[in-house]
């Protein structure tokens, strides 16, 4: 167990490779209740949330969600979030990172404006992620929702056979690069749901998975980790998330600064690296082009799926995309080839 943002979390239940492989080939179960969950509602919430985040929440249908940045006035990233539109008008459900939870709540309360309430429901709810190609087969017999009709970044209310909850939602989202679901339930019902899913999934090869596999899976899938790949000194364009910034939606917090970054060009760019050799490039290590330090590693691991080392890096934007790079690992330079992200893309379903 390790302490993570005030939560005791397992790095692994069995071992990382087995857990990682289970998610890629079958299914894995994650307790991600450490993620913060917020309800934002009240007259004017539609406009207030639109002003708060970079992506365009006005395009959301009820029960639909999107990935977005929460930025400062200067365009620095405060957090990356999932914002779901609730059934009625002026109501949203937001999932934030654990490490930034308190900061996000304070920022949002300051910037949402009067009339719009923010209710932190993290303590009374739990979040369980069921991920992998067999996720739907495991969950469907237990859920009243029609999962075959649930599209990615959509959420449905559900009842779960044998688990009494006052609220239970299933969202087709995740952080692994696989198909899968995130289940929002009352915290009181979470242990029963966890046990039920584990036993229901046993015949499908489901394994409980810790933070370790969560990190190797998300990195293979090219998904960013806040605090490691980006922080308040990083703008969305530099980290390759410019697609979450909708400058044409009207003014929002950070829009002027971000428009300037887009027009003048981001100072850095986010690159995928395929490592030669087996040493792991880790956060903060220097990236070199010839003898020049041209950037630094933001995340790195050994890819269990691909069988080689992978890393992401923030590079000076003038580094050519075909330049051969090196990462300095404990005084030795390891070759690093720039490759497109994501490193791993799941096979198309038929």
């Amino acid at each position: 167990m390790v302490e993570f943002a005030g939560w005791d979390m397992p790095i692994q239940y069995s071992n990382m490779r087995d857990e990682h492989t289970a998610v890629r080939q079958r299914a894995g179960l994650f307790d991600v209740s450490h993620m913060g969950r917020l309800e934002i509602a009240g007259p004017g919430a539609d406009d207030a949330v639109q002003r708060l985040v970079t992506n365009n929440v006005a395009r959301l249908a009820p029960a639909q969600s999107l990935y977005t940045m929460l930025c400062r006035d200067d365009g620095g990233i405060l957090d990356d979030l999932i914002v779901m539109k609730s059934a009625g008008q002026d109501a949203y459900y937001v999932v934030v990172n654990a490490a930034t939870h308190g900061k996000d709540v304070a920022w949002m309360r300051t910037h949402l404006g009067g009339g719009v309430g923010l209710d932190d429901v993290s303590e009374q709810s739990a979040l369980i992620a069921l991920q992998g190609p067999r996720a739907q087969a495991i969950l469907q017999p237990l859920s009243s929702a029609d999962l075959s009709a649930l599209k990615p970044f959509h959420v449905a209310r559900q009842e779960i056979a044998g688990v009494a909850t006052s609220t239970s939602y299933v969202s087709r989202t995740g952080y692994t690069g696989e198909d899968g679901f995130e289940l929002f339930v009352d915290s009181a019902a979470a242990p029963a749901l966890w046990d039920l899913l584990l036993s229901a999934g046993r015949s499908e090869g489901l394994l409980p998975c810790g933070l370790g596999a969560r990190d190797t899976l998300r990195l293979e899938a090219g998904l960013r980790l806040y605090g490691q790949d980006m922080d308040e000194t990083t703008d969305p364009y530099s980290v390759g998330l410019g697609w979450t910034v909708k400058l044409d939606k009207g003014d929002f917090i950070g829009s002027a600064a971000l428009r300037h970054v887009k027009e003048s060009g981001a100072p850095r760019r986010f690159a995928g690296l395929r490592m030669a050799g087996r040493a792991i490039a880790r956060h903060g290590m220097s990236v070199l082009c010839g003898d020049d330090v041209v950037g630094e590693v933001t995340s790195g691991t050994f890819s269990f799926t691909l069988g080689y080392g992978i890393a992401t890096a923030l590079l000076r934007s003038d580094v050519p995309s075909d330049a051969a790079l090196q990462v300095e690992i404990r005084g030795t330079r390891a070759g690093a080839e720039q490759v497109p992200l994501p490193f791993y893309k799941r096979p198309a379903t038929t």
Partner: protein
Amino acid sequence: MADLSGYRFTASHEWIDSGSRVGITDYAQQQLGDVIFLELPEVGRTLTAGERFGVIESVKAASDLYAPVGGRVVEVNDALVDAPEKVNSDPYGEGWLLRLEDVDATGAELVELAAYETLTAAH
């Protein structure tokens, strides 16, 4: 459980057997998780007890390796280059790291199995 008679241990989780082979303990491999990469010394290098002789890297972290006794490296386990996971699957056998000759125990702090187990049980 492997037969560990003749093995002695360090507080930094290395072992040395009666044939002066050196490796890391089962406890250490469990703490590290999946071993991906090892940086081992050249054959012929002379180590002193407690000297850092290499690095073992898992997905979780890179950790230094320390010589349990002094001696000259006469063999390193080349099989680990392509199969470092042997350190996880068989830490006291196929996952050995290197073999020493001309062993010099000066400054070495080795404990027997029972004492080592007491040490790790405290964690």
